[in-house]
């Protein structure tokens, strides 16, 4: 149990160190209580759904011959909002530069950013899934989260 706890703590710390998550995520965890025991997981799942939809939209929009930059910008804005709400900091950062390229109407840059966003998103998704798995293990082993 202690091992799991330690592993969990290390993993969490690494996520913050690598800037994959920021303190917004901590806030989310704070909101989880008895009345809302799966709050974080719910929010994160919603984030995954939303992001995948948005990434598809972005890829479709960039495939057009006449790229609709306004629509592109709107979608990136959404993605930025979602990622900042759950604290997916890296994704948010890429979204910011993505928006700059949209403003400059730079298709090359946008494509590059799209790649980057996908990478970051996949990364944060994997990390969060691992985190949840570890937490589940922890909870199953009888642990309970300290109030942060």
């Amino acid at each position: 149990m202690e091992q799991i706890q330690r592993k969990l703590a290390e993993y969490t710390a690494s996520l913050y160190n690598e800037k994959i998550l920021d303190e917004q995520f901590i806030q989310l965890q704070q909101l989880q209580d008895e009345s809302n025991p799966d709050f974080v997981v719910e929010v994160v799942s919603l984030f995954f759904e939303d992001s995948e939809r948005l990434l598809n939209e972005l890829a479709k929009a960039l495939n057009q011959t006449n790229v609709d930059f306004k629509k592109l910008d709107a979608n990136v804005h959404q993605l930025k909002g979602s990622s900042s709400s759950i604290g997916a900091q890296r994704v948010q950062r890429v979204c910011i530069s993505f928006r700059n390229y949209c403003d400059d109407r730079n298709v090359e840059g946008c494509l590059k950013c799209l790649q980057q966003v996908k990478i970051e998103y996949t990364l944060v998704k994997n990390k969060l899934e691992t985190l949840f798995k570890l937490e589940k293990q922890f909870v199953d082993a009888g642990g309970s989260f300290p109030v942060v």
Partner: protein
Amino acid sequence: MGSLLRMNRLLSSIVESCNCIIDPQLPADDLLMKYQYISDFFIALAYFSIPVELIYFVKKSAVFPYRWVLVQFGAFIVLCGATHLINLWTFNMHTRNVAIVMTTAKALTALVSCVTALMLVHIIPDLLSVKTRELFLKKKAAQLDREMGIIRTQEETGRHVRMLTHEIRSTLDRHTILKTTLVELGRTLALEECALWMPTRAGIELQLSYTLRHQNPVGLTVPIQLPVINQVFGTNHVVKISPNSPVAKLRPAGKYMPGEVVAVRVPLLHLSNFQINDWPELSTKRYALMVLMLPSDSARQWHVHELELVEVVADQVAVALSHAAILEESMRARDLLMEQNVALDLARREAEMAVRARNDFLAVMNHEMRTPMHAIIALSSLLQETDLTPEQRLMVETILKSSNLLATLINDVLDLSRLEDGSLQLDIGTFNLHALFREVLSLIKPIASVKKLFVTLSLSSDLPEYVIGDEKRLMQILLNVVGNAVKFSKEGSVSISAFVAKSDSLRDPRAPEFFAVPSENHFYLRVQIKDSGIGITPQDIPNLFSKFTQSQALATTNSGGTGLGLAICKRFVNLMEGHIWIESEGLGKGSTAIFIIKLGIPGRANESKLPFVTKLPANHMQMSFQGLKVLVMDENGVSRMVTKGLLTHLGCDVTTVGSRDECLRVVTHEHKVVFMDVSMQGINCYEVAVVIHERFGKRHGRPLIVALTGNTDRVTKENCMRVGMDGVILKPVSVDKMRSVLSELLEHGVVLES
């Protein structure tokens, strides 16, 4: 003669009749008669043919003014001839008729001759004068011829000049002008050699610049002060010079008879020679020398019209050269300007890029730097809560302290950048001034007591308790200055005193331009921090407020400051329309820091911002908002869910909507607060606020509207205030922040962005 003849004939008849002895004397008379006979005949012939000839030739000629005289003359001659002809018949015995005819003829002849003689008296002078006139006319004709010759030469000269000028002026290139001049002059005047000497830069010598034919060494120079050159430069006419003068010695020696040489000056006009209203002054001019040589051995001489031609050409050349010079200048100026333009453009673009890069950098660093700090600080403080061994606790505390320092440094740097940017604005609010000072004191006291320093605070009695200003930054200023005082004092005391500045104390001799005018709504706070520390030398005082500089004495004590503190303080004080300075009597004599800032007086504030709220201490906050009905409007599903979770955690009854229309449909007067995300595209979410205002009219009936936004720039805030929102909050919102926001909202109906 006739009578003699008759007598002779009579005698001869007598003799014949007698046939006597007189015979040997008479054959002579026969011969004489015969001769007379022949002569008369020929005379008559001549007399008759002369008029014929005359008539013939006169008929042939077109002009003969004396026809009448001719007729007379003809008549005279004819009659004379007739007379002589008739004489032929009178040698022998002739009848009386013949005598009568003869007599008539003679009488007529006599008449005509006399008349003719009389006429000739008139005519012959005339004829003679015709000759004189003829001579006169010949002379006149010769003169006209001469003049014609002159005119023709002049016209040719003019033509040449025109042609030369045209050639010279057809180009704006200096070298072409000069070369063309020489070539054309050489051609027109058939010169042997034509050379141009230009003054050197220094003006001491003339250098041979162009020659027509001979390949002279082009570096040949002569000093400019030769008498012959002075002579030429002294007049604008062409001057004949000796072929032996140095400027004319251009031909290989050994010619028999060098041709004549002339020289003329060519003025080189410079722009600066033109005064505004005067013609160019020729006094301080530079001249070039043009030397023209006639071919040797040709015995040609310089004619006046040729000299005139040369003068005119020299003038034209001067004009053409000046044009060329002006053109060169203006082209050079234009090129220079273009270069400068390009350079300036580049510099501007680089500057823009630099600014943009800096802004991007700041934007990123803002987030980048603070986040790990947060993580470190948060996790270390978490760690502090757990069970630790004493060594571990010490280690964690050190980590915390260091990271706090680092966080402060980062904030300082970012603040200063924003301050320099001019983008920093004060967060004005009402706060308790006395409490602020007391807090500063309590923060400083521990450090001071470690160093065994006494710290005293004295607040004047007329200092208001609540004031309007930027509390956080004032605290920063105080902490900085007091901190410095403590840092640089090894012993003794630090005294802080604050009072309302009166007009005399507002003036500082060191800042005469600082003119403070207190008014009804504002007053000036003067704070003096006196310490008994190491003091400051007069040389260092001006540098105190510049970034990163530290005096030698300070640097050695390893003070561990960034050097930015005072610079930031100064910026803040300036933003507060104040002034800060430090006085010191010298090393070891301590120093006093004084600043004056402008603060507002509450209750009489006329600011257009949202009405201020006095910040209450934390323990007055409402802890639960059980059942509070709120509405959350956010287009972004994830963000919506998070906000909902936040509010639910605090106990609210949350309804969520995803669009403006839905919001307007759902909102009722039961909702106490509407949280609106305004970072949505389209900015039309402000409309919702307007509609809610309209729909719910009075303040007490309608829900409070709070904007949630990712950026708190002026524009967003202004927009929110314009549509009548009750507050603006920066996302991401933490639980604590939301809690305090809600409590403020419910207490005072309004919240300021925190």
